[in-house]
């Protein structure tokens, strides 16, 4: 049973000054199962990040269907999409993007706020413990190393026990040792909560750590 199902997806960017739009994605049919862990590999500018944005409901496609479970995200209004994303999709960014005004703990709690998740501080601390940063819960991002920041980012993405975790080049700023540790951590935690994981990467070493590797060029008809 597919968790994520994409059908007849078309995305194009408007062309500059009356030029025709530039097609980015044309994916007739693609999906992943619940709990599946996938590395999505592609060259820079191939549309990997755009695909993640479409799946997350951040960008609406020009046509097609993006279904997560029973919900077609493309048919939701913006407010519903935001709520749906907060509750069902965890997002891990390339440059971590922790909010500098908030502590590690608060960054995790913020993730819960938008999903009306009342679990609170205990749950957030437990998440930080699972990424090995409980003792750094009160630290601000500037007081953490790049690897530690990424681990907080992972805890934040998992704060609402999402069904799908999207990670956009999550290890591009890390050295090989930290890269492997972060990938292992993501895989383990997603497995623990039964979440599917899509990691976008251009790094073959990262892709090799996943049981399934999808090349975007294989599913996307725009080349």
């Amino acid at each position, binding site marked *: 049973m597919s968790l994520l199902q994409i059908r007849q997806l078309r995305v194009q960017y408007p062309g500059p000054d009356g030029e025709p739009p530039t097609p980015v994605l044309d994916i007739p049919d693609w999906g992943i199962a619940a709990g599946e862990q996938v590395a999505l590999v592609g060259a820079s500018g191939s549309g990997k990040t755009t695909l993640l944005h479409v799946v997350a409901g951040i960008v609406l496609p020009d046509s097609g269907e993006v279904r997560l479970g029973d919900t077609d995200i493309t048919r939701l209004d913006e407010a519903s999409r935001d709520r749906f994303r907060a509750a069902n999709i965890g997002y891990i960014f390339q440059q971590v993007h922790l909010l500098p005004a908030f502590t590690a703990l608060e960054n995790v709690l*913020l993730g819960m*706020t938008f999903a009306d998740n009342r679990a609170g501080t205990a749950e957030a601390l437990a998440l930080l413990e699972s990424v090995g940063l409980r003792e750094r819960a009160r630290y601000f991002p500037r007081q953490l190393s790049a690897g530690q920041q990424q681990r907080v980012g992972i805890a934040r993405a998992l704060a609402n026990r999402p069904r799908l975790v999207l990670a956009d080049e999550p290890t591009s700023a890390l050295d090989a040792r930290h890269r492997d540790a972060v990938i292992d951590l993501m895989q383990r935690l997603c497995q623990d909560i039964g979440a599917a994981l899509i990691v976008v990467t251009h790094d073959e070493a990262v892709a090799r750590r996943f049981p399934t590797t999808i090349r975007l060029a294989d599913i996307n008809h725009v080349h």
Partner: protein
Amino acid sequence: MHTLTVIYRNLRQRWLSTGLTALSIGLGVALVTAITALRQQAQANFDNVAASYELVVGAKGSPLQLVLNTVFHLDVPVGNLPYSYYRKLKADDRVAYAIPLALGDNYRGFRLVGTEPEYFTLVRLKDGQPVAVAQGRPFAADYEAVMGSVVARETGLALGQTFVARHGVEDTAAAEEHEDAPFTVVGILRETGTPLDRVIFISLGSVDEIHQESRDKGGKSLLEQLEALPAEPSGSPPEDRPEDRNDHDHHHHHRKKPAAPPVGDTPGGDKPAVLPGQTTSAPAAPNQAAVGVPGQAIDEVTAIIVKLRSPGYLFLMHREINKGKDAQAALPGVEVQKLFTIVGTVDRALLLMSVLVVVVAAVSVLVAIYNSLAERRREVAVLRALGAHRRTVFGWLVWEAAMTAALGGVVGVLLGHALLAVAGSSLKFLSGLPLDPWRWTRLEVGPAWLTAYVPFEVAVIAGTLVLGAVMGLLPAALAYRTNVARHLSE
């Protein structure tokens, strides 16, 4: 996470920008607060003091000057009235009491005012209580003095001690000292919170006596000094003007017969020794038969405080006196209103400028948030990607602007009152009117249901909050329209 926590964290993150923006608003609010509170308290104080006096009668001239001089002990006198005028007024059936005042000299800047001891019992202040001598007794002879509470405190003079007055109402180094006419402190008034606290009361006879001696030595009277000034108070024709009846001293008060015997000659009481810094008990009252009732034997008075038997007589008598050629009557309450109408123009101009300062400062909230928006677009995008709705982010930014401005409002209100506390002591020194720097200020503009329950300070803080929110609308709208995908990818 609570919205307030989010806003607090964001404000703290940009503490320098937040602080400076709030401070600039605070300075404007401080001015608005200080000006409003000062004007309101000054007006209330003036109204309260004026309410204790029904009618003031004096020489023809400016009624405001007459009231300021007689009731508030400010400014110079308009002129003098013949003592006979006072007797005639006192004998009028409609008059409950009439108390004469004669401007004397000063001691270390505190005015000496000649009057009758009845002043301390008959004049009721706003609190319904008489002026009242709290320590010692009222003066009963010439060269005895009853001091206001502030005078006693500031000069350190105690009962039984003596002091030498200086000529004129202002304390100047050039002023002549009445060295051979020292006064003995026999009483200290209760603290009234009025200009009376800064006055030294003496008998009418003392005022005259001291200047008789001065004239004997060739000194100039106060009016002679005043007449040297170019402006002459308008009023009655020269032949009718009471001052002109005496070609020597128009402003101080002549005896028709010799004054009461000097202090020290009174039976049973030697003149107390001058013991600086030492407090002694009040001297016993001299035999009044021997010294005569103070103030009864002079030619002129500066003003007369009048209380009528019925309020119905007030305007009648006011009109009657003003119709006459000899004197004018002034209503203290009306004159204070006039004064604040004049002052109000300046006050409004200052207030307008202060409000403009606040508005300009509020624009800085807009600028500060707008400037920070470039770096915050990515934060906004992250929040959106985490599931925050556009409206949530919009609301946070508006609240952030509102809270920054409100912080400025709070700082400004505190700063304004602190300013008042600093200025208050010197203002009290000048006017004798108390200023409570930490008292709530009344809201004067708005519907009755609002002004009745909401103090000015709360309204100002709420106002800055709203102003800040309005200023936050533009940056919040820009954040609302943030392209999430683009800023996440940057």
